[in-house]
Every structure is written in C-alpha cells, then in structure tokens.
C-alpha cells in the first residue's frame, strides 16, 4: 500500500509540481498586493505552448532538454522510494549538467552565459548538499533515505544546523532571488532555457515544477516520520523562499559563490563535526 502510494506520488509529481508553481505565483502576487494569475495558470501555459509553431535550434539541443526532464524525474523517484541519498544528489547533478550541455550547444551568447552561471550555481550548492548527506550518514549509519525514516527522532532535532544550511542554499537551487543569477530574467532572459521554444520548452518548463517537488521533498526529510512537522516545515520553507524572492535584489555570481563558501558551507561543516562528536560520545 505504502509503495503504491509512493509510485502514485512519483507518477503525479509533475502535476503536483504544477499546482505548487501556480500556488507560488498567487502567493508571490499577494505578497506584492496583486491579485495574481489563476491556480491552473501553469497548465494553461503548458497547453498554450503545445499550440505554438515548432521551432528548434538543432535536435540534440531538444533531446538534451527532454533527457534533463526525465533524469530529474528519476532523481525524484529515487528520493521518494527511499534510495541512496548520494545517488539522488548525483542524478540531480546529472540532470542539471545535461541542461548546461544543452546551453553550450547553441550559438546564443545568453544561452552560454546562462550555462556558465548554472555551472557556478552547482558549485555553490552541491558541496553543501553532499556535506548534509554525509552528516545524515554519520547520524543514521546509512546513506539510504529509508534509514532516515527508521531513525528514532526527526533529523531537524538531531542536526538543526543542516536544516539551516539547506535553507541557505534552497534559493540557489530553486533559482530565486537573491541567487537567481542562472535564470536572471531581465539580464540573460532565462539563461539556458532561452533557445527552447513552443512544445520543446515544455520539458524544461515542467522540469522546473519537478524541481520544486524535489526541493520540498528534501525539506520534508528533516521531519521524516512526523507528517505534521514535515508539512509545517515545507510550508515555512515555501513562505521563506517566496518572501525572500520578493524582497531581495539579485546578487552577482561572485557574491553568490562567496556567500555559499563563506557561510553555507561552514554551517554544513560545523553540523557535520557536531554529528561526528555526537556519535563518538
């Protein structure tokens, strides 16, 4: 039954992600005292994009975009089925790097800039994520995500600093202000997704919805067996990310990298040290 529910969740992940994205747009609009689009807006966009005339740069570019979507879906599936944490992180890395390759494969300068910046943002959040995964290993004795659910207390209480580190890198991962250099809509007009159009853009567009689910699933892991606490954490994170997105201006990539290496990484590292000390005691 439990496995059936998980598979259903994986199969419906893009749809749920669409609703999350629509809800996020409404919340962001309400924060700015606007009315905002309807909840089903992402799906209207999806259906409209299917109706546009087909234009591609070259077939590999489109193919990489579609593989980006499916590998991200695979990463989410492994995460939800309780697989290896390191595998999840690297599948996510693989999907992002496919998008970077797609960005470099065109001749558009904005696409190249976006690919560069995406690579830099990976450099900013990936070490922190891996350090969190290692800390989880030290605490629970296994890299398996199902081990987190078998562990006697929620990770939030056993390693709160890891949650802080995750909160610090989530805006980079979700491409939100102040760390949205990779997407930067007014600056490089979407970065890597620039050259995708019409029905082929949908793969990249829905991958963004999946990314939301992926990030909030990571947040949920910190509560594991306590669904109420988990939902509260997800809700707080959702509000935090959107409030930060609305209230801050974009920093440049050097500032983002400096922030990540000087603040987020040390927080994750201290958390790892504390976990080791806790286990040794």
């Amino acid at each position, binding site marked *: 039954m439990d496995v059936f529910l998980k598979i259903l969740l994986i199969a419906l992940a893009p749809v749920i992600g669409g609703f999350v994205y629509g809800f996020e747009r409404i919340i962001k609009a309400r924060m700015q005292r606007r009315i905002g689009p309807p909840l089903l807006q992402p799906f209207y*966009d999806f259906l409209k994009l299917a109706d546009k005339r087909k234009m591609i740069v070259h077939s590999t570019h489109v193919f990489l975009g579609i593989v980006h979507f499916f590998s991200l879906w695979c990463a989410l599936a492994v995460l939800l089925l309780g697989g290896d944490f390191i595998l999840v992180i690297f599948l996510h890395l693989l999907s992002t790097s496919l998008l970077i390759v797609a960005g470099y494969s065109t001749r558009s300068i904005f696409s190249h800039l976006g690919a560069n910046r995406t690579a830099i943002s990976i450099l900013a959040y990936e070490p922190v994520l891996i350090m969190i995964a290692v800390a989880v290993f030290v605490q629970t004795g296994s890299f398996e995500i199902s081990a987190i659910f078998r562990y006697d207390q929620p990770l939030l209480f056993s390693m709160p600093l890891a949650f802080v580190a995750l909160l610090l890198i989530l805006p980079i991962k979700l491409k939100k202000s102040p760390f949205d250099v990779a997407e930067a809509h007014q600056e490089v007009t979407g970065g890597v997704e620039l050259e995708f159009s019409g029905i082929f853009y949908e793969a990249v567009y829905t991958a963004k919805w999946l990314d939301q689910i992926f990030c909030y699933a990571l947040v949920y892991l910190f509560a594991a067996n306590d669904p109420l606490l988990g939902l509260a954490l997800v809700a707080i994170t959702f509000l935090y990310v959107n409030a930060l997105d609305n209230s801050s201006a974009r920093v440049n990539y050097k500032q983002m990298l400096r922030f990540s290496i000087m603040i987020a990484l040390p927080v994750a590292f201290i958390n790892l040290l504390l976990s080791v000390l806790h286990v040794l005691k």
Partner: protein
Amino acid sequence: MKLNSFRKKSPWILHYNAGSCNGCDIEILACLGPKYDIERFGMINTGNPKQSDILLVTGPVTKRSRERLVEIYAQMPEPKVVVSCGACACTGGVFRGMYNCEGGVDQYIPVDVYVCGCGTRPEQIIDGVIQAIDILEKKTKDLEESVRLKRPAMKEGAQVNRRNIAAEIETV
C-alpha cells in the same frame, strides 16, 4: 483537442523599445505593477522572443532599431500578434519625418492593434492587449513575415502611406 482557447489564457508578452522616449515603456511596466496587474490574465513579460505571443512595440522605428525589430519579429513562433503602443509606434508621432526615424512600426511588420496616446495610459494598453488576445485566438500557425520583405525597396526620401499598408495587410 482544440487548444486555441488556451492562447487566450496565457499570452506571454515581449516588449521591444524601437527608439521610444521611455514614456510608453514606463506605462507598460506600470501595467505589471500592483495597481493594474496584468498577470491576473496570465500574462508574463518574458523578454524572450522564442517563447512569447504578443509583441508590444513602443517608439518610432529608428534606422538602428529596424533590423532588430524585424529580427525579433521573425524569431517569434506563430501564432503571434503585434501591438504598437503609443503615437510614435503607430505613426511616428512627433518624430515623424526626422532624419533618423522611419516613422511607424507598420512599415516593417504587420501590426494587429494600434494603441494611441502620448504616452499611452495603462488602461488603454490593457484594452489593446485584450483585443490582441481575441485576434490571437483566431490566428493560424501559418508563417507570418515582415511586410517589408514582400514590398519593393523604397526610394530615398519617400514616405509611405500607412493607410495603404494597412489595406495591403487586410488583403493578405
């Protein structure tokens, strides 16, 4: 399944300044703000021609910007509509006849909706865009090209009559 009706629900806007004084651009940005909020119709200001449906052009076409205008128009996938915002984009306005201006967007690309005013009021822009959405819903996915590509080159110093061009677009 008919997807035409969804065009109406998520028109993505591309805004191009073809040499405007920024008056109309500020009004377009005001449309996105809390007071007028055109996002409630599902519109996004994308800035990316490959993913947008409506081209909002402001300003008279200067000799520098005309190639970019035609290029941007050609990069937008059909169905697409063009809204010329402001007196300058419609006719050339106060810049008409100046040495650096061509006067009127419709000399180069087929314009669907003309929004008058100097500068246009946000209410007018919203009204124009809503009219453009109705046109967008009826359009097909056939290739649309710059008007200039179909016309013979203009002689030096000659001024085109925009009513003739509008009539020409009607027949095409």
